[in-house]
């Protein structure tokens, strides 16, 4: 069954990309209940800035580091300039702000950089690795490892650290959070910085595979969003599993059923899962008594 294996490897590769994006959503969502639709732009920025820094002669690791730091800075700016001033606005308004931000970032990127598609070299070459008749590129392993590592860090962050719980508390009840002494502005800033950095890191990891250009953000954000919802928004485990599942679903559909309708199949499965589990696979039900 080398085909099955190949489909699986392909699914895991793509799934890890989705998982990385989905993981980026979790922190801001956990801190504010807002799905940041500009998350895809963070991924795009990670790839684009790395490419241009690399093209300007910097070694790849340094270029990637600059990209991550710069993107984190942009995340903080987004919070300070757009989210914080709108504090207390209804969640839909905040979502529109993040959509506006994503259009803005896209517009700025095409001006500062360009509208071409770019790629930088894979970290460990392009020699495919053979596994039982199927192949996988070394870069895919990087992506998978990245997704696992970020998942693990986030999981630790939210379950083992006080500040992680403060993030959750901020989203759950901002006023109460202030009343116990949590600086909610700081929590928000931190969340945006971390989300943006994770997004940028994702961009750095996936660009050798997916390529990048100023407008890849939206599609990535959409898939990442779907993956996160499938797994249950806000839960790192959900993001990881949701991403991988979505990728494998797509690959299997493309391989066995119809490549035309692989996205459709993915969404049908998401609908089916949500029908049975309205909170996604691992989402927790909010417990509000009446």
């Amino acid at each position: 069954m080398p085909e099955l294996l190949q489909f699986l490897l392909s699914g895991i590769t793509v799934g890890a990309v989705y998982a990385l994006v989905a993981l980026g959503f979790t922190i801001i969502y956990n801190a504010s209940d807002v799905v940041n639709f500009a998350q895809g732009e963070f991924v795009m920025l990670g790839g684009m800035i790395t490419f241009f820094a690399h093209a300007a002669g910097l070694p790849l690791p340094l270029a990637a580091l600059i990209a991550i730091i710069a993107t984190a800075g942009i995340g903080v700016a987004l919070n300070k300039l757009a989210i914080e001033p709108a504090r207390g606005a209804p969640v839909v308004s905040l979502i529109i702000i993040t959509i506006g931000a994503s259009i803005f970032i896209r517009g700025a990127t095409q001006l500062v950089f360009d509208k071409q598609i770019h790629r930088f070299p894979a970290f460990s070459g392009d020699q495919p690795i053979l596994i039982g008749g199927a192949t996988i590129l070394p870069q895919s392993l990087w992506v998978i490892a990245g997704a696992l590592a970020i998942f693990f860090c986030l999981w630790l962050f939210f379950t083992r650290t006080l500040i992680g719980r403060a993030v959750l508390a901020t989203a759950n009840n901002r006023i109460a959070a202030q009343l116990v002494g949590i600086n909610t502005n700081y929590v928000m800033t931190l969340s945006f910085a971390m989300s943006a950095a994770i997004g940028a890191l994702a961009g750095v990891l996936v660009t050798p595979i997916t390529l990048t250009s100023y407008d890849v953000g939206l599609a990535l954000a959409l898939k990442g969003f779907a993956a996160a919802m499938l797994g249950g928004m806000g839960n790192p485990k959900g993001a990881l599993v949701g991403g991988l599942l979505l990728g494998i679903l797509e690959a299997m559909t493309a391989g066995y059923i119809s490549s035309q309708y692989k996205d459709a199949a993915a969404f049908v499965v998401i609908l089916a899962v949500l029908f049975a589990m309205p909170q996604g696979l691992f989402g927790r039900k909010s417990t509000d008594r009446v």
Partner: protein
Amino acid sequence: MLTVEGLRSRYGRIEVLHGIDLDVASGEIVTVVGANGAGKTTLLKCLSGIQPVSAGSIVFRGEALTTVPAHARVRRGLAQSPEGRQIFTNLTVEENLRLGAYLFSDDKVERDRDDAFAMFPILKEKRNLAAGGLSGGQQQMLAIARALMGRPSCLLLDEPSMGLAPILVAQIFDVVKSLKALGVTVLLVEQNAFGALSVADRGYVMETGRITMSGPAAELIADERIRAAYLGI
């Protein structure tokens, strides 16, 4: 310890506090009574910093608080058990308590938590349950316990006895008294005016955003008007 002068506050265009003057001495228990909508909750919200103040001053231990953000007031020793409980419904009881001591990370946190469990054993039973699943009264206990976890030097309590069984109402007032013994200052807003005035040193009466009467608790409790309007006697 806490001095409020000419405090005004508004929701949108509607002013609901029209210049409140009030002071609380260190180690004192002071209570505010008043009818529904008098502005008691608003006053406490102004003090803890989650409600903007449009005029007047709040001075706490010699420092002007008016521009200090809410979270920083906690650091200065001012904690609140708010109206509507405002617990973290998605977090467990234990996490709620831990966050109450957000500013601390020493061994005493655990001791404080055990004290809280001793005070409200039911919370210990439910420690791993999402706080949103607690009954109304249990949530009220959690809100009080969480405020105590912050090791306040001045505690603002907004109707702490609300929704509690009679046996616990008595206990809450005992707790308030014992806090005084520990040197904690308490500003208590209560609908159970009788209970509140019984434990308080002094009291204020609030009517539609103004202080209309104040004095030693014993005097207030004996005042005919107060007996008629708030105690139902």
